[in-house]
């Protein structure tokens, strides 16, 4: 899977916003963790396992917790239409 390539992450006065230019323009206010993940995988092909491994390494989660959170994150990206078709 790959993140939508028509997005741009902005940081403004400690607030992160993801500008999405798919069809119409919309803005998503996101937190620091979302922004960190987005920056890590933007422009790259990845799997859920890659996301889990990243969470383990970056946040010190155990394997099971990392797998669960990675699944939630990837599902969120999918439901928010933030993945390339």
């Amino acid at each position: 899977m790959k993140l939508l390539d028509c997005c741009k992450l902005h940081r403004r006065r400690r607030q992160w916003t993801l500008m999405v230019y798919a069809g119409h323009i919309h803005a998503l206010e996101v937190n620091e963790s979302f922004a960190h993940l987005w920056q890590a995988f933007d422009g790259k092909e990845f799997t859920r396992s890659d996301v889990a491994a990243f969470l383990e390494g970056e946040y010190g989660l155990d394997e099971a917790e990392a797998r669960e959170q990675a699944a939630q994150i990837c599902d969120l990206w999918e439901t928010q239409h933030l993945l390339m078709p």
Partner: protein
Amino acid sequence: MGNAAPSDAITGIFLLLLRSGLYGQPVAADRLAALTPEHWNTLLSMARRQTVTGVLASAVEQLPGEVKVPAAIDYALMAETDRLEANYLKMSRAVASLTQRLLAEGLHPVYLKGLECARFYPVPERRELGDIDLWLPHSRDHHFTHEGFDVDVHSRYYDLYRQHAGLPEIPSPEAELLMLNVHILKHACSAGVGLRQLCDMALAYSALPYNPGLYREACRRAGVLRWTRLLSSFLNQYLGADAPLFGLPAPDPAPLLKIVRRGGNFGHHNPSRLEALSRRPFLRKADTFWRILCATPFSLRYAPGTVSGLLATLFKGNLGA
């Protein structure tokens, strides 16, 4: 700086924010505490009319956390900067391929304004870009398109209307400053000029290692010394620049502010000018002729040699579009 004549207070805040965007000058939160969402809409509208949204965006990014910027304004500015940055990248690639093509034909272009001015900005990608302008010595004025951009080829480096002996060698910092200077003058004495070109000039004075004595002499030879002092007074007072006054008192910059407020972006936001631009070429030229005449008191006061030259150029077909 718009049709509804924003108040002097809002104009003052707009210019304060531009200075912040250009030079990184911090803006105290209390200066903006009384701004309503409508005021912010007005500021964004002014930035669009003056084609300086990238500068405004830079300023807003630097505001203290306690300043409440409406989310819609933040999102609009983010979308603007993304658009500007994408266009900058596209134009940079187009200029690179155009240069290769021209060099292969034995031509040596000197690029003017636009992308060249962007390099003066703290974030070059945030300078609004339009056409690609270049000077080709010994060529004629003409236009073509390249990779989706309009390319204007100029036969003259300077927007001056008669031969002036002893102008600076091209390229040089003094030549580039004079070129930008008289380009602003040309538009100020016809349809109007906006803040984008004035921001370019303000930053150019900081960025270019020019010799003040040589530059003063160049302005004198070009017959624009008095105009240059007015321009400098405007840039220093409203945009926080360090533009030269040649040891003389700063003239009142209000006449130039009036021109900038009236139109913005080469007068393209003056409603009657907008209407004229949508008409046939003859009617557009007639409108430009009328505007040159209306600007004559200003031109005669600050650059007397400009009026006849502008009219001659208009009738030769280079103005009015």
